[in-house]
């Protein structure tokens, strides 16, 4: 009896400071993602829905916050060269785990778990979908129970790939030990219910449908999370997900609401919820094909060997095409709060964003016409400009998606005004973005003059992303069309900058280099950026603590979410 009294006294003392905040005091949190979670192991599924649903359960050593800044999660501080965490030669990084970390099953988290995670993903037969986060990792060693050292085979100016962000969380060695390599997919129980350090633990997982979770009894902050249970429902479509939060109030949080802006603002007018958006690095852009996609070229079609493009290699044409586009209208029609006009392919984080190309923001049909006139492109009898028998006739392809088709139609109209003929084409996303070698319709093969899609990069470091446009990244039959340089842009000066960046460590210098590369790409017109795209989600007005984040999982701070008074 005495003991019990003492215990409650201690407990009372502990909770006195935050009498209101108590674990599990706020009932149930309902989250809806219109794509359902298939698996809770991000290493076996790169889908955003799977990564984000898993992020409630398993966590990385450090998160990115909503501004793209790294914040310590399972560690006390971020290792840097200055604090000695990153070696002088940039070839290793040493993380020190916080004290007293526990898995949800009550066992301690050790450096061995972290080292195991790397081993799990690097297994050659595992088909690990996050392998790019572990690029150049030579070994990961547990120095003692709480210290783990990642060794790279090359100097890594940005060594925060492994274990930072929702894509690379730490998994428990004891649970996944027998699930390495080819065995990985067979461990259904582990993949459906990973043991983690996160604020919630899985109670029931119905694949492609719903995840039920409850508060983690061993979570490191005794007062969190505020909700006792979470239901993570999936499936359906974006519009009805938005409705369930904004109109009917059945759900508290809805993810990725790619809905016509008009419909979304009507729903928000019901007053039950708030639409939130956040901008990362996604840019909807037009890729300009510098090589000739003429079918007559056969195997050499759209390759460097096939020769340059008949008219898109003329800088005047590329600039004119960009000038004719009114980006404001594109945002208004298709994106609303989820888009901003941009003239950069690298629009964020702020230190990397260039302002040198902002001239493209305003539409100027007359200037575009003049550019073409001056370059010798004169209108023919049907109003389409031509020079030396070459007509400005463009095949413009993208994936099937109502916003993209609306954008295509508008762009086609503007280009018609400056005397450019456009044929539109749309291809199902799973084909367009799928790497099927036998399909002529993939975005890598680029058998068209212009193609449109969105790309971005994980985390905040643009080094790999900017390296996409170096000469060796050009897709061709020799590399099975596996390259990211869709415009087939090749400039030795640019390649030199890429090489320089891979050896530069200082953040300011890296930013200057990245800006220079961005400006080079923009001013040479290898791409025509259109929209800086953000994520749009909605939360109920009764839900507090949402800090919408494009740099990490949107649920990165779910431990802090609570019910408003």
């Amino acid at each position, binding site marked *: 009896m005495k003991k019990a009294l003492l215990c409650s006294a201690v407990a009372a003392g502990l909770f006195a400071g935050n009498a209101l905040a108590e674990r599990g005091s706020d009932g149930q949190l309902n989250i809806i993602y219109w794509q359902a979670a298939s*698996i809770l192991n991000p290493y076996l599924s790169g*889908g955003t829905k799977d990564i984000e649903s898993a992020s409630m359960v398993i966590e990385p050593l450090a998160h990115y916050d909503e501004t793209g800044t790294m914040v310590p999660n399972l560690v006390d501080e971020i290792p840097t060269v200055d604090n000695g965490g990153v070696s002088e030669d940039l070839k290793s990084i040493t993380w020190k785990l916080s004290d007293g970390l526990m898995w949800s099953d009550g066992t301690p988290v050790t450096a061995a778990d972290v080292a195991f995670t790397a081993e799990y993903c690097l297994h050659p037969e595992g088909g690990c979908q996050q392998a790019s986060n572990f690029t150049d990792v030579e070994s990961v060693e547990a120095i003692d129970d709480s210290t783990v050292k990642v060794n790279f085979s090359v100097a890594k100016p940005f060594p925060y790939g492994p274990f930072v962000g929702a894509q690379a969380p730490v998994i428990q060695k004891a649970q996944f030990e027998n699930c390495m390599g080819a065995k990985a997919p067979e461990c259904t129980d582990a*993949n459906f219910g990973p043991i983690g350090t996160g604020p919630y633990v899985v109670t029931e997982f119905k*694949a*492609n449908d719903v995840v039920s979770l409850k508060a983690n009894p061993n979570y490191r902050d005794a007062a969190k999370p505020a909700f006792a249970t979470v239901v993570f429902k999936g*499936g359906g479509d974006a519009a009805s997900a938005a409705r369930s939060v904004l109109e*009917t109030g059945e759900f508290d949080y809805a993810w990725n609401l790619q809905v016509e802006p008009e419909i979304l603002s009507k729903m928000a007018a019901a007053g039950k919820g708030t639409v939130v958006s956040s901008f990362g690095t996604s840019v909807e852009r037009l890729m300009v094909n510098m090589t000739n996609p003429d079918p007559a070229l056969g195997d050499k079609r759209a390759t460097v060997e096939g020769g340059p493009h008949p008219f898109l290699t003329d800088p005047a044409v590329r600039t004119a095409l960009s000038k004719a586009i009114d980006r404001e209208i594109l945002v208004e029609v298709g994106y609303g709060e989820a888009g901003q006009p941009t003239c950069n392919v690298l629009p964020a984080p702020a230190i990397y964003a260039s302002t040198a190309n902002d001239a493209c923001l305003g539409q100027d049909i007359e200037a575009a016409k003049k550019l073409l006139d001056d370059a010798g492109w004169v209108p023919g009898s049907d109003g389409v400009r031509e020079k030396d028998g070459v007509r400005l006739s463009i095949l413009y392809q993208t994936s099937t998606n109502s916003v993209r088709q609306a954008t295509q139609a508008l762009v086609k109209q503007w280009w018609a005004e400056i005397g450019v003929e456009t044929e539109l084409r749309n291809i199902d996303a799973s*084909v367009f973005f799928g790497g099927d070698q036998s399909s002529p319709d993939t975005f890598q093969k680029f058998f068209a003059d212009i193609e449109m899609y969105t790309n971005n990069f994980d985390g905040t470091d643009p080094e790999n992303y900017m390296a996409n446009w170096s000469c060796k990244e050009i897709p061709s039959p020799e590399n099975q069309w596996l390259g990211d340089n869709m415009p087939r842009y090749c400039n030795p000066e640019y390649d030199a900058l890429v090489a320089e960046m891979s050896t530069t460590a200082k953040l300011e210098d890296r930013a200057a280099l990245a800006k220079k590369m961005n400006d080079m790409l923009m001013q040479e017109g290898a791409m025509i950026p259109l929209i800086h795209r953000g994520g749009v989600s909605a939360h109920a007005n009764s839900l507090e603590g949402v800090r919408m984040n494009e740099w990490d999982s949107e649920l990165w701070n779910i431990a802090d979410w609570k019910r408003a008074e």
Partner: protein
Amino acid sequence: MLNYTIRRLLFAIPTLLVISFLIFAILDLAPSDPTGNLPLTIPPEVREKIRLSLGLGEPFPIRYLKWLQQFFINEPLNMIEQWFGITIGDSENRLRVQSWATRSPVVDLIVERMPQTLWVVGMSYVVGILIAIPIGVISAYKQYSVFDQVGTFISMVGFSVPTFFTGLVLIVVFSSTLGWLPSIYDTTHKVTDLASFWFQVKQMIMPVMVLALFNASQLSRFMRASMLDNLSQDYVRTARAKGLKERAVLLIHVLRNSLIPVVTVIALGIPQIFGGAIITEQIFRVNGLGQLLIIGIQGADIPLVQTLTFIFAVLIVLFNLLADIVYGILDPRIRYE
């Protein structure tokens, strides 16, 4: 009859093998890629490794034979093991048909989802039949009356308006505006007492009614046409001449005879129940087989789509046989010899 059934069943085996091959070939030829929906930030080399880990590196015939082995040998063995709690051979390493998206056995996914589909879609079928038969009977008996005209109009509307539209209209009216019914099916809900049973009824009303309207409009037309055929037959006049009450003539003589073709139509429609109502399940987020199929197609989860489609094919073949047999039982004039 028994001979006939056995003969038909034996014929079904090569038919189903051909179907399974066709499905596999079509899915393989279709230009889709299981890594196509992944974020573009995942580089091509990693994608290639993922494809290899899914077994896509092997040639088409090998993959087909592997699937045959997994589906026809490994899965039944596994089922027997689970039912009787025994171990046959090396069950640890026996590969089952694995979904690419969830990396779990496809059959487990199907088993998990079957009840919802049977409840929601099956219930809608029953409700549809219960609505359709009286409407069909009355419409035929009082041909060109106001009731018939209204019934015809409603069934035309029910048949021609797609379920994704009626579903949305119901959601906007009953969930958004009135707030009476939930728009999203709670698949974690468990019926334990009266209150939770009432909740279950409430969340089932909309999807069931959307599908019931569609089914009823189709069936009521069949019922009406069949009744009209029979009403003008000689035996009806004879029955009336015998002095039978109108009620007996209609409900005993005419209805029974008219039901013969309708029962066939109903039996042939049963595989659809298992197939789930893809669109309706998707709108209301009922975790049934239809939703599983559409998610599988969107994610290029070939083993899942292949297995589900094949199971539907088996059901269609079986229920065709069943319809023929029932027809023979109901109508003694028909003999299969």
